[in-house]
């Protein structure tokens, strides 16, 4: 179940007169031509963030989101109701994004430093003091995220960047809670030396290696 701050955003965006997601999906299945559009409109901003942060490329993200939207439209009958509609939508988007990444692996990657990509992926940093600093931070975050294995990035993006709970992400990704925790932990460990200058003082970047022995300890 999607909860927390997203729920508040969701309710704020919908207003009290809007029907629940599940009801919209039911109406869509019954032939209502507007129901799916209304449902998707509610969530597409957040689904866009999921796709973009997962694939780190706006063109690929747009493709992934459109693929996912059409899949959900056509396969709405497959929704069994054992999870929230939003969880189901997120799962489709993540899977479409990961599939894009798999196919993209066989093609040349987007040139590093593409400002359009960086801006789209990283957004703006509220703690940046000037545009140059913000741009630098964006490049750092984007570059760092690209260093992660796809599945680690997907988990970390959902938990740390988009604020989903570990349990929600487990449901979205179809993996165990422990696996989500592990992927996030390993992702943070990889990012720590790359982002240390943004969030604090890196004490020892070399300790990403398994173990380290200090003398005189």
């Amino acid at each position: 179940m999607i909860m927390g701050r997203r729920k508040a955003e969701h309710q704020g965006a919908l207003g009290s007169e809007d029907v629940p997601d599940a009801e919209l999906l039911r109406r869509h299945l019954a032939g209502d031509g507007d129901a799916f559009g209304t449902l998707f409109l509610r969530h597409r901003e957040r689904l866009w963030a999921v796709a973009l942060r997962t694939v780190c490329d706006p063109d690929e993200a747009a493709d992934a989101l459109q693929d996912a939207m059409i899949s959900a439209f056509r396969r709405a009958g497959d929704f069994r109701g054992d999870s929230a509609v939003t969880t189901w939508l997120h799962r489709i988007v993540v899977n479409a994004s990961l599939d894009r990444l798999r196919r993209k692996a066989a093609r040349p990657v987007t040139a590093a430093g593409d400002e359009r990509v960086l801006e789209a992926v990283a957004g703006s940093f509220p703690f940046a003091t000037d545009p140059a600093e913000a741009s630098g931070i964006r490049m750092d975050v984007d570059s760092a995220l690209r260093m992660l294995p796809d599945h680690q990035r997907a988990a970390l993006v959902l938990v740390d960047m988009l604020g989903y709970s570990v349990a929600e992400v487990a449901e979205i990704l179809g993996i165990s809670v422990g696996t989500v925790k592990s992927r996030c932990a390993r992702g943070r460990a990889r990012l720590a030396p790359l982002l240390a200058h943004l969030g604090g003082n890196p004490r020892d970047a070399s300790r990403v290696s398994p173990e380290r022995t200090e003398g005189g300890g």
Partner: protein
Amino acid sequence: MKGQRTHPGAEAIADCVGGVRTWRARRVAAHIAGCPSCSAMGRQLGQVSAVLAAVPPPPLPGDVARRLDAALATEVAARVASGSTLPETSVPAAVPSGSSAVPPESVVLPPGSVRPDGQRPRRRPSGSPRWRVPRPVPVLTALACLVLAGGGYLISQSGKPSAVSANSAAGSAAQAQRQPRHTGAAFRPGFIEGPAYNVRSTNTDYLTATLRAQALSELSSPAPSKGTPLSPASSSALQGCVMEVAGNDTPSFVDLARYQGRPATIIVARDHAWVTSRGCNATQHGVLDSVSLSGG
């Protein structure tokens, strides 16, 4: 060796801090509790989460929103045209199976090009937007082939706002106004003989209170020369909708936009504007709102 101290690696600390249950978790936790260096490392890992959380979600770009709206309109129209009340299920989809997601077949249309073979181009010009028209259903693909074989199907597109003249031969508004309305010649499923009006996808959110002003504003803006890709099915459905809703009024343009935040079709003639649902067609054409554009 005496005097040496072995510290757990960052991944072990990350596992511990992140609540991952491992065989060494208890030992690592005990070590962190007594080791300032590893405690600092734990805090540093926490700061990674803080940095990532500080990045605001990127807004959905307008061109992507319009593209999604157009793709969804195509899906809805295809569904209406097929007469199905249930979504198509024969197309491979990004099912939430935890495995790979197979996207639906689609056609990528680079700017200004027509893809009669329905194949995705290998590369696109750098920096150019990609517009993809989902292939609705096999029967509609066959209809599209018929149209393409007839040479009457022109799809062109550009940035925002976008528009399409679904029939290059009948693209002249003056010619369209001479056409008899509500005749079989004006609407033949599978062969696009109209519409001779401009179809846009501006992503404008028309509102009840400002519908008239918004329609007049769009009406006074120059018609985009290139535009939104429409499948034969969606074009036919739209044409049927327009004929039923606008009656004897010749539309100046149709906007696949939003109304009160929801996907809607805005039909604007010289003296009147109507709002219908996206699923509007010749048989289902409920008007959600309308306004007169004549007078002050």
